[in-house]
Structure formats: C-alpha cells, structure tokens
C-alpha cells in the first residue's frame, strides 16, 4: 500500500544513472515474467489488483494478480473436479480434523473460486459464505473461471475480518486465504483476529489457513506462536513440500493423531470421487505443532509488522525445521 500526500515537482532533469535506475524499477517486474504459460484472456485493473486471466494450452485458466509472483488460482471452467494447486488440496485435509461432514463453511478470499466449487461437488449439502474484498474478483471468477453463486453459496463483498465481526453466524469450517499478491493484510494475522475466528467456530469446528512462507522467517514463527496461543490444537501441512503451509487449528482441545486423521480422510473418500488422494496427503504432510516451541513474539493488533518480519531470519523451532 502506498501513500502519497504531496505532489512533487522536479526542478532539474534527472541525471542518466538515476533515470536508468528509475526505468529498471518501473519495468523490472514486467521484463521478468515468471509465468507466461498461455494467452491472456482478460486483463483489468480493479480497486485492489491488476487482475489477469491466462488460459494455458491444456484449457486450465489461471487467475493472477502479479506477473512476477505466480498465480492465485487455477481452474478448468465447467470441471470443478480439477483441483490443481497443492495448497488447495492440502487445505481440504482440514475435513479430516472435523468430526462430521461440513454444513456451514466460510471462505475468506475467493480467488478463482476453485475451492468452493470443489466443496460444492463433494458435499452438496454444505452452505457457504464467501467474503471477498474485491468486487472485480467476484465478477471475473463468475465470468471466466466457472464460479457460480447460488442459494447455498453467498458472496459478500467485504473485508473478511469485518464480515466476521458483523455476522455472528458460526461455522464448521473456516478457510482463510486472503492475500494480495503475496502478502497477508496484517489485521488477518493477529491474536484478536484469530480469537474472532475461534468465536465463529461451532463446537469441534476447524480453521484452515493458507500461510505462504519462503523458508523459515520470523513472520512464519510468529504466526505459529499466535495460532498456538489462540487455539488448543495446531497442525501444519506443508503443501506438496512447497512454500504454502496449511495451518489447521481446532476449536476442540482433543488432539487428532496422524492415524486418526488418515482414517477420517479415508472415511471421507468412501462413496465420493476425489480427484486426489486425500488420505495420502494427510499421511505425508501431517505435523502436530500444538506444543512445538518457537522463539517468536505473538502478533497482535498493536504489534504485527508482518512484512518486516518476513525479511528476518528466525531460529529453528524446537524439533527442527518444519
């Protein structure tokens, strides 16, 4: 977020090197595209993002907010069973920590809508609320990415925290995945926010949060610490061994062992056609973090320098690097 309050005027022309540096800064992200896998289907500037929809040869469509930062979402329109990203698959592992089938689900952040559409397919009875801050993202998801709201899927265009604060409704499952290109807004990381999320869980309910962290940094350990402080149980799944970690936090104090979670995942698989092996994911990625010691400060509304902490190295947690 940038703030400019004073219009500035240039008195003298800038010298050559300064101009070159300026040009480099301005054009660097554009000249270094990490992912240009297909043709640009749609491109627009919304209130919050530079939204791009890119279609690959395979027919997969990617939603992207930043050319250099990879994609937010990948979908095959009309085929919700295609769930491409590892982190979205790992996020569904949250179901293995819930003792019943999900009836009421909240998504914070819509993206391309791949997760709600997938949940729709597997659990048609589930009612979903989706809080998405950017109205253009909702329009793009509906027009290009096969997302459809209906009588069981309600979209609220609002800040996720505000939506929860205003609506006293409680949920079996809350998915937290509200990112601008690769940073989380600080007010969605703090103890106060997580306490609000916990208060919105039904008994036995589960929060699943996508935490993006390139390696071990102080933001990551602080996030672990904050979840530990608010929730009685915490599990971390490193999605596909990559930079996305799924934090699974439960309202219930009873621990769920790896075996129990795997068993539960197996039970969920029966009678339903999953496009990936849920039980295998749970088995390979399960890690209990409830009592793992981390050296970190709890994030609060008063103290949450999220982006600054990201750049600082942390000492490894008690039982080694996750």
């Amino acid at each position, binding site marked *: 977020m940038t*703030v400019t*309050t*004073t219009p500035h005027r240039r008195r003298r022309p800038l010298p050559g090197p300064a101009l070159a540096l300026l040009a480099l800064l301005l054009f660097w992200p554009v000249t270094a595209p990490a992912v240009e896998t297909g043709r640009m289907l749609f491109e627009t500037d919304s209130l919050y993002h530079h939204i791009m929809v890119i279609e690959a040869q395979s027919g997969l469509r990617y939603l992207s907010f930043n050319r250099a930062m990879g994609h937010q979402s990948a979908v095959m329109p009309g085929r919700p069973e295609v769930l491409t990203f590892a982190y979205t698959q790992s996020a569904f592992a949250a179901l293995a920590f819930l003792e019943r089938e999900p009836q009421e689900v909240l998504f914070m952040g819509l993206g391309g809508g791949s997760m709600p559409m997938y949940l729709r397919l597997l659990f048609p009875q589930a009612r979903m609320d989706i809080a998405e*801050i950017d109205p253009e993202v909702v329009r793009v998801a509906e027009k290009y990415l096969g997302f459809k709201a209906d009588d069981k899927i309600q979209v609220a265009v609002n*800040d996720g*925290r505000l939506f929860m604060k205003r609506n006293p409704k409680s949920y079996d499952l809350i998915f937290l995945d509200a990112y601008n290109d690769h940073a989380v807004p600080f007010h969605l990381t703090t103890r106060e926010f997580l306490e609000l999320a916990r208060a919105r869980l039904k008994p036995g309910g589960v929060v699943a949060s996508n935490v993006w962290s390139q390696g071990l940094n102080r933001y990551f350990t602080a996030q672990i610490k904050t979840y530990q402080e608010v929730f009685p149980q915490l599990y971390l799944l490193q999605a596909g061994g990559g930079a996305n970690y799924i934090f699974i936090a439960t309202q219930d104090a009873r621990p769920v062992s790896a075996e129990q979670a795997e068993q539960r995942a197996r039970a969920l698989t029966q009678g339903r056609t999953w496009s990936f092996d849920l039980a295998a994911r749970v088995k390979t990625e399960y890690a209990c973090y409830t009592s793992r010691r981390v050296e970190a400060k709890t994030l609060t509304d008063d*103290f949450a320098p999220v982006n*600054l*902490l990201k750049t600082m190295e942390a000492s490894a947690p008690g039982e080694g690097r996750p």
Partner: protein
Amino acid sequence: MSARFLAWTVYFIAFVSGAVVMAFEILGSRVLAPFFGNSIFVWGSLISVFMLGLAAGYYAGGVLSSRGSSFKGLALLLFAPALLISFFPIYAWPICEWLFELDLGQRLGPLFASLFLFTLPTAFLGTVSPYTVQLLVRDHRLAGQGAGNLYAIGTCGSILGTIGTSFFLILWLGTKASMTLLGTVLLFLVVAAWGCQMAAARQEGKKD
C-alpha cells in the same frame, strides 16, 4: 542566542512536525484496520482527512500569522497536537468501537472515524509552516523564499516520518507506543519553541 540559531530551530521544528504528520497517518491505518478493515475506502478516507486537516491548518496558520507570529504562539500551536496524540491510545479505540457499532457502511464508517480522530491534530500540525514564515523572514520580499524553505524541509520531514514509521517504528514499538512516542516528540518541540521565546525576549531586551 543568534538569529541564525533561532532560524535553524524553526527549520528543525518544521522538519519534525512534518515527520510526525506522516508517522501519524501510517499509524492511523493500523488503528482503523481492526474496525474498518484494510479496504480502499479506509485508505481513501484516511488520506483525504489528512489533506483536509492540513488545508484547514495551512489556512488557520496563515490567518494567525497575520496578527504577528511569536515563538510563544508556536509553542501553543504545538502543545495541542502533543496532547491529542499523547492521549490518542486512550480515546481512539473507544471512538472506533462506537462507530463500528453504529454501522455506517463500508465507506462512511472509516470516513467518520478518520474525521473524528485525525482532523484536529493534523490541522494544528498544518499551522506550523505558514505560522513560522514570519519568524524566519522580516523582509516581505523574502517571504516566498522562507515559505519555500519551510515547505521543502517540512516535506523532507514527512518523507522520514513515512519511511521511518513503515520500515522501523511499527516493528520496534507497535502502534500504541509509537503514538505515545510521537506525542512525546511534539512535547519536546513545545519546549524548544518555548526556549526560543525566552531567548528572543532576552535579545529584544538587550536591544533596548
């Protein structure tokens, strides 16, 4: 104490109060987010209210200076925001809570919160530059030069306030303690302005 020393003190005060304005604005976004989110409306409200406060302050500072500027007046003008910002953590959160309960909508909520919380301190800080022009220049032909210097230095202070707060202060102290620090810094400026008042009075005395 020489006239030159007094001039440098004026520049110093302009620089620091410029820094405080922007530090206050950056911290303001952190105060609003838990109640009104991080939407574009919050930033829009915040920035426009700061502009409003500064505009009112520039105007008021100009009017006040037409009746003659003094270091004593400057000290008083700085004392108000010093108090308002020092005690900010005490009244800001209840006001935000109250406005949240009123539920004025995604736009009006943060706009009114910004109006209530930020207009007054910003307006007082805005008076500093126009008010101090006269303390720097007695020759009216140099008034433009003095004003230019003050705005340039004040804006440089704003750059430091913005970078310093967003890069460091939020990490070191968090929001509430940073607010208290800003208030304390302003109190220090009050003392500095008061010191200049005494010095200037003594100088006047010597001349007679």
